């Protein structure tokens, strides 16, 4: 997966991130792969440690593994909930898992995006910057999950703007293009809209994913004991 830098926004400085993963080897690998636009200011290997480090450093972005030991066993979602009151800190979930329940758990806990660990360094740095700017980061796989969960593939789209349980036709278009492997810039070019508009659509979808009571989401979650 590759994501372009949003309009090549010139970074005033590197974005500080805290890296949370229980595998030391993986943390080392991620730190080495991130480019100069991102600076790792702290690391943590468990839920409790992560909560402590995040509260202490208050970084703009936390790169968070979904599966973490410690705490009450809630993994990354628990870290997000425990740090919900830390202002200005956003979470980007980073996982090796393809399982729908993992994705839904961290996104509904409040993560601003979900990328798989197969992502390369440049794309991950882009994703971190994007999250730091307040945007959502959708990998093709997450877009696929969204289309699946909202029944958008079967043409079930919203007619009103404020509907939480269905995607709008435009959001569905954007999700489909992302699932097809388009970068945000390519999506913008394909739909003749600005990158900012693409980001707005993606953020709206993220909000629906977090707030919707759509029965598929609930059924998934219930079948997997999420809610």
């Amino acid at each position, binding site marked *: 997966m590759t994501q372009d830098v949003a309009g090549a926004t010139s970074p005033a400085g590197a974005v500080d991130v805290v890296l949370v993963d229980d595998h030391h080897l993986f943390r080392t690998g991620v730190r080495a792969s991130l480019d100069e636009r991102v600076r790792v200011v702290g690391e943590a290997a468990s839920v409790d440690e992560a909560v402590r480090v995040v509260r202490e450093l208050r970084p703009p972005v936390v790169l968070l593994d979904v599966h973490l030991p410690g705490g009450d*066993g*809630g993994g990354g979602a628990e870290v997000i909930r425990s740090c919900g009151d830390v202002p200005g800190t956003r979470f980007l979930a980073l996982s090796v898992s393809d399982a729908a*329940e993992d994705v839904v758990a961290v996104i509904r806990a409040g993560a601003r995006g979900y990328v798989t660990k197969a992502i390369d360094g440049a794309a991950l740095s882009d994703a971190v910057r994007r999250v730091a700017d307040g945007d959502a980061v959708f990998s093709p796989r997450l877009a696929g999950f969204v289309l*699946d969960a909202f029944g958008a593939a079967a043409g079930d789209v919203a007619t009103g703007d404020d509907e939480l349980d269905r995607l709008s036709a435009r959001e569905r278009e954007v999700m489909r293009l992302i699932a097809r492997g388009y970068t945000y810039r390519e999506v913008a070019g394909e739909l003749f809209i600005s990158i900012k508009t693409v980001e707005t659509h993606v953020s709206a979808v993220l909000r629906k994913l977090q707030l919707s009571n759509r029965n598929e989401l609930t059924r998934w979650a219930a079948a997997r004991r999420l809610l």
Partner: protein
Amino acid sequence: MDLTAGAAAVVRPRTPRGALRRPERGRWVAGVAAGVAAHLGLPLKGVRVAFVVAALLGGTGVVLYAFWWLTVPPGDPYDEAAAARPSAFARLAGRPHDPACVPHVRRWPVTDIAVGLLLVTVAAVGVAMRTDRLDAGWVLPALVVIAGAALAWSQLDEVTRGRWRSRAGGRTPFSVVRVLGGVVVAGVGVLLLVGRATGPGVDAAMFVQSVVASLAVLAGVALVVAPWWLRLWRALADERAAHAREAERADIAAHLHDSVLQTLALIRARADDPAEVARMARAQERELREWLYDDRPAPGTSLAAALRAVVAEVEDSRSGPGGEPVAVDTVVVGDRVPDEATAALLQATREALVNAVVHGRPPVSLYLEVGSSEVEVFVKDRGEGFDLEAVPSDRFGVRESILGRVRRRGGTASVTSRPGQGTEVHLAMPFAPVPPDEHAGRPTPEEEP
């Protein structure tokens, strides 16, 4: 009722409920009070006070304590509750228990009512005994019945209760009435037997009394035997669960040995060939991923699984222009049972993938969507792109093997390629409309309630 007033605040947030076990830690005598408190989610102090009060009033507390001491096995309540989760979840991370996410189900305050009833009963018995209004011959059987029922019920942990309830016809008022009715009948029987009831009309009373008395004997025996029987049964279930866990562990070990360990050994042996190492690692990752996360549908029932097999074959057998292995980023939305048309679509998809891997540049993206009337496939790469019209008709096999194959089946196919932006192949295959129920959801039987 100040006993329950503090209960809500002290409930441990970790698990909704512990199993009924006597914990080793925090016990004063035998851990009965601690176990009961953990099981019911009551404050430990309150349970202890209740035991002491009940012990002072006629010795019920002592009897109950001794009984539970005998019948409740030692162990950690929360570990037991955690172990009761299905083993399929054990290999994944623990699930968050967020009280804010729990849907608010209207629930009877059973615990409060039970404690209230207990207190009222104890108080009434105390008053009655002091004023000599109540015959001790009535009090003891009544207490025995209540204690026995509570005991039998408390022997069942949450999971078993749920199973019993569902077997009795779900959590409907009807099943509750059935259980309550049974308890009431048994109780009345015991009372009639022990309590020398006299009714008007000797014959009828005698008849009823003898019938009820025989039932009461049965019920009484059942009550006495139930705890021991349950214990035996539970030991059996424990053993069975241990066997299942053992089998699961052996399964995982065998799998890791057959696949992962062998691949690692191969990788070490071929460490001088990075392309081969990358390919083996990718194949192993794919296989392990499938084993861990997939629903493993039956063969021939899932288009998604068939597509994954195609992707695996292409990833394993084809290399990029520089000889390096290429991973295909696959996203699938929806699923359906494959048929002849989708078989042709998959064949075309395979050719498009081979083209993208061999002639394009990674990352190669593959998206399959099962819509309401057609299956769509997009294959995208990031190569230089080319002008389709300028390509000789025999090259790449694009025209025949990809486009022709789909169009002959009534589908549509197109190739979009702009220089510098890569190539995207779009295939769409309509299918005969079926009732929405049959293809709306993924065929995952485990998700069915």
